[in-house]
Each structure stands twice: as structure tokens, then as C-alpha cells.
């Protein structure tokens, strides 16, 4: 028998497996905690799924026993659930998670939609039109790529509060509508589209805007997919900006802000429902990624970052 064991190959695989474990571990913990009882989490017992022994829901008991005296056995009985049900039901009931999820969808999609609306014509102009100062404008785009959002968060907050937009969807959406990264990415992709195609479209009678939406956009779908994933993931998961822009009105909370509802209550930290919430928040992204996986990878390699 020929042995095709190779030490270097084995080493590579071991390294990769360790890397994969490090990446997966937090997700493993999240998923596992979302199914365990508080006691199991504290004592770190119960394996991955927990024992799923029915437990008493303290919140339920408290809510139905306003007097605060020793709760009756009946009440305790009524408030007994398995931990997994407790965690996931609390995730939706303790906080209006559905509303937060819908907020997240609305904000994320609005941001992406407006970003595309702005970035595509900009990228087209920077890639294919000749005008005075084009290179200077492109340099500005590159320069803006270097500015970290955290650096301008405070001025942005002040500006928005001056015009009275804090605690609104506008506060969550407007600051992100111009994506220099999107402009840059699409411009690089448009550079690879032959000029003849644009000239042909002009002779066929298309206006410059028609060219952007009817010729460049369909050609750039792979790059657009890549940008969509970057944008949607970034804004769906963003905790920093919503935390600043939405100071009091919980109606505008996005899903990551929902996690706060389980943090630092008088009851202490309740990890089970919190992790259940986290699981619910990341699931749409993972599903979308799996569905779009092929396109995503195509897009990234096509845009080539060259």
C-alpha cells in the first residue's frame, strides 16, 4: 500500500483546523448558551444542548406575583418551561425583537438601496467620463476610505441633533448613504468594462443615466453582490452607530441594540435569552450568505481588487 501521508500537508491541515476552531468557538458558545438554563451556564455543565430539565421562569413568576410574597406552587408550575423554550420565548417577549428585526431589515435595505443609487453614477463618472478634476475627485474618494467612522461619529451626532434627527430612521440611514467603498469598488469594476460598449449604447440612443442603469448595472451584478454583502453585513451587525443615534426611543432599535435588553438588569446578566437573541440576529445573514455564496465569491474574484 502506498502511503501518501505528508508531514507538511498534515501540518497545514492542523493549522487550518485550529484556525477554524478559533473562529467557530464563539458561535458554538452562542448556540449552546441559547439552549441552556441559567444554572447550567453558570456552572458550565450540560454539554452542548444542556439537560433541558424544566426550570422555573423567574420573570414569569415575578410578573404574576406583584405582591412579592412567596409564590404559590401553582404559579411556579405554570411558569415552568424547558430552558430552550424559556430562552427563545424570552428573546421575543422581553424585548420587541420582531420590531427590531423589521427595523434592521428596513434600515439595512434602505442604506444599501441609496448607496447603490449614489455609488453607481459616481463610479461611472469616475471610470468612464472625462471631466476636469476627475483624478482629484478620485483621490478624495481614496482619501475618504482612510477615515474611520468612529472618528466622525461625534460631529455627525452633533449635526444630526442640531437638525433634530436623533431618534429617527433618518439618523440610522442618512450617514451611510454615500459609501466611498462602494464608489471605489464599482469604479474599479467599471474600469474593466470596454469603452466600445458604452459608445455603442450612446449611438443606440441611451442617455448617460440609461447607460448606468441598463448597461453598467447588469454587467456589474457580481461586483454589486459583493458590495451588497459587505454593506448589509456591516449595517445589520452595526452596534456602534445605532447606539449613538438612537438615544431614548426604543421604537428605532435595531437587532444588535436588542441585545442590551438582557444586559445589566437588576436581575443581573441573563445570558440564555441574550444568546438566543444573538442567534436569531445572525441567522438571516448566515442563510443569505449560504444562498448567495457562489455569487459572492464570483464577485470578489471578478472585481479582483486589482
Amino acid at each position, binding site marked *: 500500500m502506498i502511503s501518501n501521508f505528508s508531514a507538511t500537508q498534515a501540518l497545514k491541515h492542523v493549522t487550518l483546523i485550529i484556525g477554524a476552531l478559533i473562529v467557530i468557538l464563539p458561535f458554538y458558545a452562542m448556540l449552546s448558551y441559547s439552549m441552556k438554563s441559567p444554572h447550567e451556564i453558570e456552572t458550565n455543565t450540560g454539554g452542548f444542548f444542556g439537560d433541558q430539565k424544566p426550570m422555573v421562569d423567574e420573570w414569569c413568576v415575578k410578573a404574576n406575583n406583584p405582591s412579592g410574597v412567596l409564590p404559590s406552587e401553582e404559579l411556579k408550575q405554570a411558569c415552568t418551561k424547558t430552558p430552550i423554550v424559556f430562552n427563545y420565548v424570552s428573546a421575543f417577549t422581553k424585548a420587541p425583537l420582531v420590531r427590531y428585526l423589521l427595523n434592521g431589515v428596513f434600515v439595512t435595505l434602505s442604506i444599501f438601496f441609496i448607496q447603490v443609487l449614489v455609488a453607481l453614477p459616481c463610479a461611472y463618472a469616475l471610470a468612464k467620463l472625462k471631466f476636469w478634476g476627475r483624478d482629484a475627485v478620485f483621490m478624495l474618494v481614496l482619501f475618504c476610505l482612510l477615515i474611520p467612522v468612529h472618528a466622525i461619529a461625534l460631529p455627525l451626532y452633533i449635526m444630526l441633533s442640531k437638525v433634530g434627527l436623533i431618534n429617527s430612521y433618518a439618523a440610522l440611514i442618512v450617514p451611510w448613504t454615500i459609501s466611498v467603498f462602494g464608489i471605489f469598488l464599482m469604479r474599479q469594476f467599471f474600469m474593466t468594462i*470596454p469603452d*466600445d*460598449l458604452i*459608445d*455603442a*449604447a*450612446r*449611438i*443606440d*440612443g*441611451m442617455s448617460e443615466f*440609461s447607460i448606468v442603469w441598463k*448597461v453598467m448595472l*447588469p*454587467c456589474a451584478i457580481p461586483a454589486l453582490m459583493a458590495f451588497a454583502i459587505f454593506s448589509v453585513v456591516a449595517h445589520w451587525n452595526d452596534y456602534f452607530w445605532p447606539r449613538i443615534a438612537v438615544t431614548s426611543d426604543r421604537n428605532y432599535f435595531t437587532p444588535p441594540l436588542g441585545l442590551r435588553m438582557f444586559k445589566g438588569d437588576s436581575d443581573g446578566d441573563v445570558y440564555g435569552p441574550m444568546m438566543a437573541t444573538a442567534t436569531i440576529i445572525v441567522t438571516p445573514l448566515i442563510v443569505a450568505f449560504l444562498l448567495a455564496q457562489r455569487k459572492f465569491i464570483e464577485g470578489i474574484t471578478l472585481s479582483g481588487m486589482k
Partner: protein
Amino acid sequence: MASVTIQNIDKSFGTVKVLNGVSIDIEDGEFIVLVGPSGCGKSTLLRIIAGLENQNSGSIKIGNNIVDNLHASLRDIAMVFQSYALYPHLSVAENISVPLRMRRLNFLQRFPIIGRFIPGSKAAKASIKKDVDEVTEMLGIEELLHRKPGQLSGGQRQRVAVGRAMVRHPQAFLMDEPLSNLDAERRVHMRAEIAELHRRLESTFIYVTHDQAEAMTMADRVAVMMDGDLLQVDTPRNVYANPVDIRVAEFIGSPKINILSAQSNDTGDVNVGDMVLAGVKSAAKNSKIQVGVRPEAVTLEPKNSAGIPCHIVHHENLGSEAYFHVELNSGERVISRMDASAIDQFSTGHDASVMLHSNNVLLFDNDGQRIVTHNEVVM
């Protein structure tokens, strides 16, 4: 269908001058070929005619209208690009219908779903479909209608590009090296097909190529350009037999014309080396001149007969004819084109004599301008 008048077009890119006062009058229905070496400004001229580029000065007239300030889409011309420039996301039928959709449907009617409910769109779409069908049938691409450009061969793409140009019956067709992406065999075939299309449409064709064979075989008139200058506009026959400039003579014809340095004396007789060209009188007397002789006007004779002594360096047999590369004593190279049977008599490594047929020699002065010759009949 219209004439196209190009008046004194100048064009520079930055400091680089690309076109120097080019003027051509193209008649209605004419097939004119712009030919010249790579980088001489052919595409630039075509793009100026199309309205894709602005000239620095001069003007373009299509029919009776000066179109200098008209957008490309309003000039009523169609263009076929070297890369075909088909919309990659649209099917063949959709590609061909784009120019009509942009013209016959209004903004709302072009909308994907809403468009259907806008009055008049049904009739307009039916008329578009009819015209597209007519064109695809004419080009023999009916079976390809639902394919995307990525699923077509080069020749098929070329036809689709021509179809997209034809479908709106433009005043003139501009074509920029439409055959250069095809293999040699296909190219010869498409050459005939485009010439036939021209006869059928009776429209004005302006065709750019750097391939002189295409120019000679397809054109009513050939416009030879070099370094931004228009050197000569004439019938293929005249461009070949009567070039006005040595650069034209050198560019047209394969193998290339032979150029020999010569001297004219005060009676106008021309000496090439020791030999006097019989019966040729140059109008430029007493000067250094250049003699151009086409390879077919050069024949080899046995060694030591009349003519210029030479050594055969190389010969190529093309089956029906043969090319002989010979070196004169002066070191100049000459190519002779003879019947293949001459190989029996002459072959590489041997000495021979070169005869120049004085009826067919062309004289140029040292700046490359043509010199008037008086050919006398020699007995």
C-alpha cells in the same frame, strides 16, 4: 442614405496631433474604406464622424446637415465596433431591438412591467419585432435569437452587431475593423458578405481597416491615411497603379513595391545603377530620385543577359506563382513575382539578371512625391 462630407478635420490629444486637416467627400451609397497602418488616426476619424469624439476644428456634414453639434444618437448613423460591443446581458433579439426601443418607445413604455399598460406600446413593440425579424432573417441568424452574446461564435457575434446597426436603416454605416477578430478563412467569407450587404442596402458605408486586402477587395474608393494625413482617395485600381505618394505605393500591394534609388540626367533619362530605364523620361531632371516597381513588373533573366546583375537570396513557392528575393550589386533588395514555373530556371543561391518593365515603373522624388513620367513606346 446620404452623402458624408468631411471638411478639414483637425484633432489633437493633448499635444499629440492625430489628424491633420482631413477632407473627404463621400458620395451617397458609396463604400469607402479608410486604410492605413496602426495608429494613423482611422478610428479617431470614424469616431469623430460618429459623434463619439469632438474634433478641434473642421466640420462633418451628413446629407445636407452639419452635424458637428449633434449627439451621436441624433446623427442617424450606425456603427459596428471591432469588439462588436454587444450587450452581454441581453439576448440576440434584445440586442438588435435596443436602437429601435430607444427611438420608438417613450420612457414609460420602456419600463419592464408598467410599460405594457402604456397606450401605444403594444403597436410599437409589434413593429419593432417585425423589423428585428426582417433583419435576422436577412442575416440568417433566426435560430440564435434567444441566445446571449457569450454563447455565440465570433462570426455570429459579428452578424448580430451588423444586425443591430442595420435595424434602424441609418443614413450611413461606420465600421471599425469589424473583421479583425475573425480567423483568416472567416474573414475572407465575411468580406464578400459585407460587400454584398452594401449592394443590397445601397447605403453609405465607411469602413476602417489596416488590412489592405480588405480595402482593395471591398471598396468603391480607398482612402489611404498615414500619420494623420490623408494621402490619397481613389479607386482601388488607381491607388495600386497610380499612387501619388511613395508611402501609398509602399502600403498598398503585397509583396511590397520595390524601391530603388536612381539618378535622372539633364534629358530626363533615368539610371538605375548602370542601367538606363528604356523609354522613361522623368520630369525632374538632374536629380536623385526613387524608382518604384511592383514585383510583377520585375522579371528575372538568365545571368549575363541585359538588365541588372543580381544574386537570388531566397525564393518562395506559392503554388501558382513564386516570389524571388534578389540582391543587386548595390546591396538593394528586389522582389520579383513570376509564374511558379520559373523555379525550374531560377533558384536560391544562383546569379541572374533583373529586368524592370519600364511601362510600369513609378518615379518619386526624394520627398516621396510622384514625378510625372513620359513613357515612350519601346520597340
